[in-house]
C-alpha cells in the first residue's frame, strides 16, 4: 500500500516498491443504447430490441484518462463492466483502445439490481483486484444519474472527485482539474481514489487495427459477487407530456404579439 507515494507497512519483497509505483488502474464502463438511437416505448417499457449499443460516451473519456495515466506512469488498466454476456463486446471495444485486462461481473439474478447493489458489486470487484485508482464516466448516457462513481467510492471508503475534465499524474496520486463556480480548481488527491470524468480537452482516442485484432483474442474474466437486497424500486415510468402545437404569426403588425408571447408564454426574453 502507498500513501503519498511512500510505502507503508513492511515490504514483503525487495521489488515490491518498484512494482507498486506502477499503479493498478481500473476503469468502469457501461454498455448503453447509442445516444442517437430511436427509443421506442411499448406498453410503458422501453423496447431495446434493434438498438445499437455503445460504450457510454463519458466512459470513453474515462478510458482515455486511464490509458494516459498508464502511459505516464506505467501500470496496467483493467476495464470492468457489470452486465450479461452481450457486454463482452463492450469490453472488447475497450481492449481495442488499449486496456490490458477485462473483467465482467455477472451472475444469475442480477437482472434487476438497484443502484446500491451495482455500487456494492463494483466496489467488491475493485477491492478484490487491488486497484489503487478508479476512473469512470461522470454519468451514464442511459440513466444520466451520476451516482455510480461517488457511490462506489463511498462503499470503498475512498476519496473521490467528480466531473474531472483533465488529470495530471503524480507518484502516489493525481491532480485533477474540475470546474467550480466561475472557473476551474486544481485538486490533489492520493491513492486510493476514484475520479468521475467529464468531457475535457483530451478527446478519446480511436482504436487502431492492431488493437482490434488483439481484442479478438482477449479473454474476459467473468466474476460473480455479493449483492445486497434491493432497497430502491422504480414505481412507474412515463413519457414526457406531448408538446403543445406551435403558433404561427404573419406580418410585421404581429411583432408586439410575438414579443409578448416570447416573454409571457415561452419565458425566453
Amino acid at each position, binding site marked *: 500500500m502507498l500513501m503519498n507515494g511512500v510505502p507503508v507497512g513492511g515490504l514483503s519483497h525487495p521489488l515490491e516498491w518498484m512494482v507498486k509505483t506502477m499503479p493498478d488502474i481500473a476503469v468502469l464502463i457501461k454498455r448503453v443504447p447509442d445516444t442517437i438511437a430511436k427509443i421506442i416505448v411499448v406498453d410503458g417499457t422501453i423496447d431495446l430490441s434493434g438498438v445499437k449499443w455503445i460504450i457510454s460516451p463519458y466512459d470513453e473519456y474515462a478510458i482515455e484518462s486511464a490509458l494516459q495515466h498508464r502511459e505516464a506512469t506505467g501500470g496496467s488498466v483493467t476495464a470492468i463492466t457489470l452486465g450479461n454476456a452481450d457486454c463482452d463486446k463492450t469490453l*472488447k471495444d475497450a481492449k481495442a483502445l488499449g486496456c490490458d485486462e477485462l473483467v465482467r461481473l455477472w451472475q444469475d439474478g442480477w437482472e434487476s439490481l438497484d443502484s446500491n447493489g451495482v455500487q456494492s458489486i463494483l466496489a467488491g470487484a475493485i477491492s478484490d483486484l487491488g486497484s489503487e485508482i478508479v476512473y469512470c464516466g461522470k454519468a451514464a448516457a442511459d440513466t444520466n444519474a451520476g451516482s455510480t462513481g461517488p457511490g462506489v467510492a463511498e462503499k470503498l471508503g475512498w476519496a473521490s472527485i467528480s466531473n474531472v475534465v483533465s488529470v495530471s499524474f503524480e507518484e502516489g496520486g493525481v491532480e485533477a482539474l474540475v470546474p467550480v463556480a466561475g472557473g476551474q480548481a486544481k485538486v490533489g488527491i492520493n491513492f486510493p481514489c476514484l475520479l468521475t470524468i467529464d468531457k475535457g480537452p483530451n478527446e478519446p482516442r*480511436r482504436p*487502431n*487495427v492492431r488493437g*482490434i*485484432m488483439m481484442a*479478438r483474442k482477449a479473454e474476459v474474466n467473468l466474476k460473480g459477487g455479493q449483492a445486497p437486497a434491493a432497497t430502491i424500486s422504480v414505481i412507474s415510468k412515463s413519457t414526457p407530456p406531448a408538446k403543445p402545437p406551435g403558433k404561427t404569426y404573419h406580418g410585421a403588425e404581429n411583432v408586439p404579439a410575438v414579443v409578448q408571447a416570447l416573454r409571457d408564454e415561452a419565458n425566453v426574453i
Partner: protein
Amino acid sequence: MDFAESDEQQMIRKLVRDWAEEVLPPTISKRDDEQIAPSKEWKQFCEMGLQGVTIPEEFGGNPVDDISESIIIEELARVDPSLSVMFCVHVGLCAKTIVLHGNQQQKETYLPRLAAGEVGAYSLSEAGAGTDAAAMVCKAKLSEDGSHYLLNGEKMWVTNGEQAEIYILFAKDVDHPEYGVKKHGGTTAFIIERGFEGFEVGKKEDKLGIRSSDTCTLILTDCKVPVENVLKSPGSGFPIAMNALDNSRIGIAAQALGIAQGAFDCALKYSTERETFGVPIQRHQMITAYLADMATRISAARHLVYRASWAKQQHYEHGAPRHSLEASMAKLYAGDTAMWVADLAVQILGGYGYTKDFPVERFFRDAKVTQIYEGTQEVQRLVIVRNLP
C-alpha cells in the same frame, strides 16, 4: 453458412466510417476540384495501422481477414472514392503482390516500408496496352555484368503515380527465350523505387472522376533496376500480373459498393427532407420505388463482394480453387450498381443533385471508373464465361 459480420469486422467498419466521416469531408471538394492527392489524409489514415492489412506481422503489418479488407475499401469509398482506390492499390496490387511472389530479401526490404505508410503502386498498362496487356512494349535489358536491368519505355494510368515510393512495374525482358515468340513472352515484374536512376513520373491525367486520385504516366529512360528486384524470375511476370488483378478486382468491386452506398445514403436522407406537393418526395411512389430498388441492388452487390473476398481467403489459406469467377462477378455487378445507383441518386435530388452542393454529383462522376479499370466490364464478362463451372 453464416452471413453475420464478426465483432472485428464491425469494429473495423466503425473505425473507418467514423474516421472517414470526420476527417475527409472538409478537404474533399477542394481535392476533387483541383486534383490534389490525399497525401495529408493518408498520413492520418496510417495512424490506424490499416495500410498494413495485407502484410504479415513479421514484416510490420496488421493482417485482417479478406472481408475486412473489402469493408475498409467500401467505407472509404462511401465518403471518398479517391482515397479508397489509393488504399486499394497500395494494399492489394502492390503489397499483396510482394507478399505472394516476393522472396525473403524482397519482403524484408519492401514490406516494412509499405507497412510504415510509404505508398505503393502497380504499373501494367501502357498507352497501347490496356485490356490487351500483353501488347506492352516497355523493354528491359540485362546489363553486361548481369547486375541490373535497364528499362525503357512509358507506362500509363498509374494510380498513386505521383505519391508512390514503391512500384510493381511490368516490362518485357528482350533476352528471354519467349520474347517475341509468345505474345506476352518475356514479361517480367520488377519492384521499382521512385529514386532509381532513369525513373521519372510524367503527366498526371485530368480526369472525369476520382480526381483526387493521382493517375500518372511513368517515363523509363535507361532506368536502372538491380536484378534482385525481379519478382520470381525473368519472364514469369504475366501470371503475376493477372493474379494481382484477380485479387484487387475485388477491391474495386468494394470501392464500387461504397460509392453506391454513399450516393444512396445521400439520396435517402434528401428524400425525407425535400417536400413537393406537400409531402416528402419519398412518399411519391416513383421515388419510393427507386429507393427500394437501389437498396436491393446494393445489398446484392454487397453479397457478391463479400463472397468473393471470402473465396479469395479460402484460395490462399485453404487451397480452394482460384477466385477469378467470383471476383469478376463482383466487379461487374458492383461497378454497374455504382453507376446505376449514382445516376438515380442524382435524379432523386433533381437540380440540386446536378450541382457540387451535394456529393451525389461527385459520386456520379466517380462511379464511372469502376466500370473501366482493373478490367473493363466487357473483360469481366469474358472472364466469367471462361470460368463458368
